[in-house]
């Protein structure tokens, strides 16, 4: 490829940029109200479609003219469906409303859109500084984040390329196309960016290898096969801002000298598939993809491949196998994909988040990026924080922030006055860390040192009611199921690990089990080819290390300290507080396990009881009579009357 000759890419880009600016200007200068609705999968799941319909109906009914703007997700799952209403005529700044269900939508259409009364009791805050009402950035969940990858998520319409361009999108591409490819790689190397797929391999190094690889047609693959059950940031990025990923892919292609690219996205993410496909079409139309991009001699195009759902396909060689139409089984490395990948072509595979970080780096410079995060792990990390926290959702923080800050300050801590017990980081490959590790800074190396890993970025916070043995069993059930079956230790070893853990949760644990778990885990780690097997025992090993007493209680006392393992837990009704005549628990019991005792109070038939805990929720707080105990023997026996209730 000859170096680009004239300044044409930027000129080309400026023309598109002017069009975007004109469109943006006409949108911003609208005097009519604008309603932004978060319409990513999470928003839709919480009812955003109904909310949008309610707004449309209310606007039509009241003959109001307002613009409805579908945007992506801002990552605040606890508040979905989220709506931002900007009504310039009211004199108020744009205001963010949480949990806007249809009723609230109709109310807001009437009061705020029509009458200009923002109904302050329903707001979360204004999105712009002003001197009337609090701003959302006054809350820690908003102001303690640093958004690099997700900066534009939730602000722009993912279906409109001009929206992205008006925010400065594709400027980095135009600039970079005028420079030699080697300079882009230098910039990425000196930024210190490490692959966000989990392992943290230096991205610049990978690009150097790919650029240096022989072979004619190189290939770029964007790995969006997010398989961790509990991590969804890749999906959110593709659904909220697909163009930033597309731009990253083009830049990667230019830097390493590739002509083709594939986005490998899970078929289970239909909206992400749709939006990224549309983004590629739009980019093609504007000359950002295809032949002679922005007038430069560089040709590049992207195709979408839908992955069929196999956790192991997150592994590079397995992913390539699956595109070739085979079962996704990892191959031995070397040869590495950068030397010999899809159909023998040199293939460079990067994660969605890695690629989405490229354009901000090239736009602002490597030094800017190095200024965020830590020395060894520059930049930001995105976590999906779920489980027992007040404000779950996606959080983007600079590397180096401690777990305590993330969980307690940003995400609001543990709800219901419960105590923090453990945090599971990195999904099925990661580990559980106890309270002592809350001051661990979040970066690649510190987490590995503590026994967890960055992994996919899934983070599950557990309160005192979680049983670590059961959580380990859950993750093993997942990895055992997802093991591709190639390596004996992974295929059979994880099965045995699972059998032992199941035995423990059912109260049939044996004293030698703990040692067996440890040696078997080590064997699986040593005897597996790919990351799945090498990391599958991590949840077991870390929980054994930090929560040994729980394992021991399960084995020696047949007791689940958290009362989570159902085989070891019994429910009973405290006859001192149970009220005569109350039937609340009877009504909700799915198996008719609750009977009336001879004293006309209630008792639990332990044979029928499936331990779902529904009676505990249903029991009125003033009686609070349902008790959950472990081990089983602690539940007092209550005699069940033989006959149907006696006549009074």
């Amino acid at each position, binding site marked *: 490829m000859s170096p680009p000759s004239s300044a044409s890419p930027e000129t080309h880009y400026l023309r598109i940029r002017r069009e975007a600016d004109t469109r943006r200007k006409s949108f911003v200068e609208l005097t009519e109200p604008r309603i932004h609705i978060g319409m990513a*999968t*999470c928003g*839709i*799941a*919480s009812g955003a479609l109904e909310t949008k319909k309610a707004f449309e109906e209310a606007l039509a009914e009241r003959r109001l003219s307002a613009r409805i703007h579908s945007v992506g997700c801002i990552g605040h*799952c*606890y508040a*979905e469906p989220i709506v931002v209403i900007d009504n310039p005529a009211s004199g108020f700044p744009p205001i963010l409303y949480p949990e806007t269900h249809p009723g609230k939508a109709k109310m807001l259409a009437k009061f705020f859109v029509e009458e200009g009364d923002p109904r302050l009791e329903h707001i979360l805050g204004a999105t712009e500084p002003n001197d009337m009402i609090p701003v959302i950035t006054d809350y820690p969940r908003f102001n303690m984040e640093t958004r690099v990858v997700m900066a534009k998520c939730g602000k722009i319409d993912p279906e409109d390329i001009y929206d992205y361009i008006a925010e400065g999108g594709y400027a980095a591409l135009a600039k970079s196309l005028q420079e030699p490819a080697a300079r882009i790689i230098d910039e990425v190397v000196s930024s210190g960016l490490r692959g966000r797929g989990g392992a943290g391999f230096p991205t610049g190094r990978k690009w150097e290898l790919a650029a240096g690889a022989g072979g004619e047609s190189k290939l770029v693959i964007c790995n969006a096969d997010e*398989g*961790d*059950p*509990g*991590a*969804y940031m890749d*999906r*959110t990025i593709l659904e909220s801002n697909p163009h930033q990923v597309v731009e990253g892919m083009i830049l990667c292609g230019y830097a390493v000298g590739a002509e083709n690219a594939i986005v490998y996205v899970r*078929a*289970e993410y239909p909206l992400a598939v749709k939006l990224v496909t549309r983004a590629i079409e739009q980019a093609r139309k504007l000359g950002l993809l295809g032949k002679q991009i922005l007038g430069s001699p560089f040709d590049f195009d992207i195709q979408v*491949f*839908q992955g*069929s*759902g*196999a956790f192991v396909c997150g592994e590079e060689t397995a992913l390539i196998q*699956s*595109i*070739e*139409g*085979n*079962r*996704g089984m990892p191959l031995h490395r070397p040869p590495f994909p950068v030397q010999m990948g899809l159909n023998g072509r040199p293939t460079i595979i990067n994660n969605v988040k890695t690629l989405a970080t490229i354009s901000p780096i090239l736009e602002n410079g490597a030094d800017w990026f190095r200024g965020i995060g830590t020395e060894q792990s520059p930049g930001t990390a995105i976590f*999906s924080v*779920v*489980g*027992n926290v007040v404000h*779950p*959702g996606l959080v983007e923080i600079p590397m180096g922030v401690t777990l305590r800050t993330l969980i307690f300050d940003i995400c609001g801590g543990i709800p219901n006055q419960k105590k923090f017990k453990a945090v*599971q980081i990195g*999904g099925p490959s990661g580990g559980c860390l106890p309270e002592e590790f809350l001051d661990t800074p979040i970066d690649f190396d510190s987490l590995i040192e503590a026994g967890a890993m960055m992994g996919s970025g*899934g983070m*599950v916070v*557990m309160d005192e009611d*979680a049983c670590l043995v059961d*959580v380990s069993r*859950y993750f093993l059930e*997942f990895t055992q199921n997802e093991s*591709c079956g190639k390596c004996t230790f992974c295929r059979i070893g994880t099965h045995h690990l699972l059998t032992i853990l199941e035995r423990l949760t059912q109260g049939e644990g044996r004293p030698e089990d703990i040692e067996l778990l440890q040696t078997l885990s080590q064997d699986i780690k040593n005897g597996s080819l790919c990351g799945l097997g090498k990391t599958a025992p991590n949840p077991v090993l870390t929980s054994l290390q930090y929560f040994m007493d729980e394992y021991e209680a399960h084995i020696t006392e047949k007791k689940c300290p958290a009362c989570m393992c159902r085989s070891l837990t019994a429910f009973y009704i405290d006859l001192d507080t149970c009220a005569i005549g109350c039937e609340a628990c009877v009504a*909700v019991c*799915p*198996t008719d396990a609750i009977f009336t005792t001879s004293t006309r109070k209630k008792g639990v038939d332990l044979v029928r009881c*499936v331990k*779902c*805990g*529904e009676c505990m*929720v*249903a029991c009125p707080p003033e009686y609070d009579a349902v008790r959950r105990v472990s081990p089983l023997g602690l539940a007092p026996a209550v005699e069940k009357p033989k006959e149907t209730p006696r006549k009074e």
Partner: protein
Amino acid sequence: MDDVLQAEEEAILSNVRSRLALFEKDRSRLIPILQMIQETHAYLPAAAFGIVADFLGISECDVYGVATFYNQFRFNPPGRNPIKVCLGTACHVRGGDIILENFERRLEISEGETTRDREFSIERVACVGCCAIAPVAVIGETVHGSMAPSKVESLILRVQLEKEREERSQAKNESTQ
């Protein structure tokens, strides 16, 4: 019932045959072909494997091996109201398995099966991405958050009542015509 199924399957197979023509005869098209069949017909009938294998010139067991490797593919027809219970990490911590168990008990089928009247089927899925409202179940296209065992009963009842209402209004329409 079986006759109905067989007739349906025949129709599906002939449709598959005609659609295959749109694809390149290349091994790398295998997964997209299987996805196409499932997308149009909601499942992969066993007889389709042979057709696909012939088309691509690979063995039938190769096709079967790939299809069963991936979680996306299902091999029996789903119910009219497919129920997906999320067992992602957040849902598990909040009792997703109890919800699955309640659906199974109530409908008297196991996960992966369809009721005899083909009204309901149950599937477990790993994370639908609504972790904040866990535990979650998806019926048809609708996501139901903060599930509880008592909500299982009411959701199934609601689907059944709606069906009855529809049948009644249909019968009424027919009698008035």
